[in-house]
């Protein structure tokens, strides 16, 4: 029999690396297996890294982590074809320690993060695919890799293998995700001089901006577009649920081209040289699609567990916290030597007691409500734009008349009651 570990972690993304780091720090013997050439080489996200959850793992990580810019301003754009209504918050307290969140490039960040786990004592193996969990007497006892002599054993296997989680699926923890439970996001990293970025986004050198876009960015489909500023590049991307894309027969790349060429967006991205083109699925099924999280000798974390809050575009932070909680659970189980589902179940209860479970529960109906009621993005965003246009265009019409006109327009489609119902429904979905 080959070498045995305390923990085998499958996948060196935010969840897997957090788990490996924490477990190694607690003195456990950890094997971290990554399929990419190096951690980060295959990992994709829009680009926002949240401070709080990583800080709980590595205090004051920003002094050494390869971060791009601290985000000091969050902008929200409600786009129509040739106009937009915007709102934003900019706070210079976010430009100072301890910061709020950062932009990062995953290829750099994940590599660094995994190196930190290795420093703690985890053994990292790259370019190796885990093909299945080794199950003996109904208990997961290790993993089989695609390499010769590729079996390796552990007390607990942590699945951090990302959105598709073929391994959790093999174990029967979940079925194939439905098209409305995952979003397809495509993005490009565009090279721009930092001076140009500072001017276009009105920030200083060490300050970043995040822009979330609704409405015409996705042709009114359920989803968002985004721009995040790095040091000398920007991430621009767009994502919608897979089901919307299928229904509208949209090609992801066409959608990204539409975003980049939108008259409100184009001036920000103009002249950017494409460094990378990335596409990835994001689990957005939320609370109702969270799979079985724990089995005998196995724990599911991160995207594999559908831990994504689509409304607040949070995911990497939930991944990190879930990885950490998994490691703590295993360390506790190690004391008693009991790695059964019952013993590891405290992972599940802790997850549901944490912000992960609570936030997922809060928004459990949100995606469904917005998907079933396309009027929010398709009709109300253009109406908002028209209302602003009517109100602020100086054409000699008295303001009272303008207000009447706006209200008439707003209620024309669905009536006053319909409008009120829609607003209530939206509020209920996110309350």
């Amino acid at each position, binding site marked *: 029999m*080959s*070498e045995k570990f305390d923990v085998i972690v499958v996948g060196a993304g935010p969840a897997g690396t957090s788990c490996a780091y924490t477990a190694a720090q607690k003195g456990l013997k950890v*094997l971290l297996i990554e399929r990419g050439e190096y951690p980060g080489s295959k990992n994709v996200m829009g680009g926002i890294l949240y401070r709080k959850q990583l800080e709980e793992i590595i205090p004051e990580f920003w002094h050494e982590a390869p971060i791009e810019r601290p985000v000091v301003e969050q902008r929200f754009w409600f786009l129509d074809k040739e106009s937009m209504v915007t709102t934003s918050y900019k706070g210079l307290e976010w430009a100072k320690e301890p910061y709020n969140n950062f932009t990062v490039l995953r290829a750099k960040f994940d590599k660094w993060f995994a190196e930190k786990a290795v420093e703690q004592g985890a*053994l*990292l*193996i790259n370019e*190796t695919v885990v093909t299945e969990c080794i199950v003996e007497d109904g208990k997961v006892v290790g993993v089989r*890799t*695609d*390499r*010769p*002599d*590729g*079996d*390796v054993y552990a007390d607990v296997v942590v699945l951090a293998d990302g959105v598709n989680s073929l391994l959790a699926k093999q174990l029967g923890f979940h079925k194939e995700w439905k098209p409305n439970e995952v979003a397809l996001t495509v993005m490009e990293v565009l090279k721009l001089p930092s001076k140009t970025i500072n001017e276009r986004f009105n920030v200083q050198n060490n300050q970043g901006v995040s822009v979330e876009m609704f409405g015409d960015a996705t042709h009114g489909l359920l989803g968002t577009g985004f721009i995040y500023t790095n040091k000398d590049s920007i991430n621009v991307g767009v994502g919608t649920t897979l089901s919307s894309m299928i229904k509208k027969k949209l090609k992801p790349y066409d959608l990204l081209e539409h975003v980049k060429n939108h008259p409100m967006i184009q001036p920000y991205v103009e002249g950017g040289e494409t460094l990378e083109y990335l596409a990835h699925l994001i689990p957005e099924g939320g609370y109702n699609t969270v799979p079985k999280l724990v089995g005998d000798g196995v724990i599911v974390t991160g995207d594999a567990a559908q831990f994504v809050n689509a409304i607040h575009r949070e995911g990497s932070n939930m991944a990190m916290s879930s990885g950490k909680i998994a490691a703590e659970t295993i360390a506790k189980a190690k004391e008693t030597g009991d790695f059964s589902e019952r013993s590891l179940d405290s992972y599940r209860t802790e997850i549901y007691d944490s912000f992960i479970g609570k936030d997922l529960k809060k928004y459990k109906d949100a995606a469904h409500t917005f998907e079933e009621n396309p009027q929010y993005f398709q009709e109300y965003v253009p109406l908002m734009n028209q209302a602003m246009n009517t109100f602020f265009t100086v054409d000699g019409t008295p303001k009272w008349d303008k207000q009447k006109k706006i209200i008439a327009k707003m209620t024309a489609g669905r009536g006053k009651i319909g409008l009120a119902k829609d607003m209530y429904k939206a509020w209920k979905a996110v309350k």
Partner: protein
Amino acid sequence: MNILVCIKQVPDTKIIKVNPKTNTLDRSSAPTILNPYDAHAVEEAVRLRKEHGGKIIVLSMGPPQARLAIRKCIEIGADEGYLISDRRFAGADTLATSYALFKAIEKLKEEEGIELVLCGKHAIDGDTGQTGPGIARRMGIPPLTNVIKVEEVDLDKKLMKVRRKIENGYELIQTSLPCLLTIEKEMNEVSYSPLPNMMRAARYEPIVWTVDDLNDVDIKQLGLKGSPTIVGKMWPPEKSSGAEMIEGSTKEQVEKLLSVTYEKRELFGVKGGEKS
């Protein structure tokens, strides 16, 4: 049969950019990899060890991060790895490099015999192919370059038969051992490393030597000082012109491609043919 493999960490030239002003390689623009020919050399060493036993030692000269290239060799199956790393080695051309590696080999030979030295045919960053023969000359053993197959090894008689690639065919040649071979890609397929090798490599720390660890080193023959090579001028190769991008919808592109192919049919040795 103990085998020494000399390896180099190189920038991945498939990705690397050339600085348009100085015409030098922008090394920061590409990740570093194990020189691909060297991987074939290590693989061949693993194959020979299976048949003839012995130990595989990997040797490299380079900065501290060249450890990663040595770990890659451990993944393939090497037993030990040595890195000679010192600022005094820096700026070396092939003459100074072969001298430094030779000095390290002398030191290694104090511990155990070396019956065979393998090198990649050349490093993909410099393409000179001189370091291997340079080492052989200093060691006083025969260098056989561009080897594509080891046909026979007779350890009792200390003989080896190999197949070399030459311009108009192959050459079957017998040599005495020890000798030095430089390896072509045709030699073998680098196999997918077994998991135990991967785990050993991930934990492996190569033995690092500085100039001071080597014996009787003539400092004047090291690094930039020991390198008579002068770069006179650098220029990028002329870009070939005449290529035409076919653009448009898929249908337009296919139609354009068909009509161009038809117009230029004599290029493919096709005569006549009426457009239907």
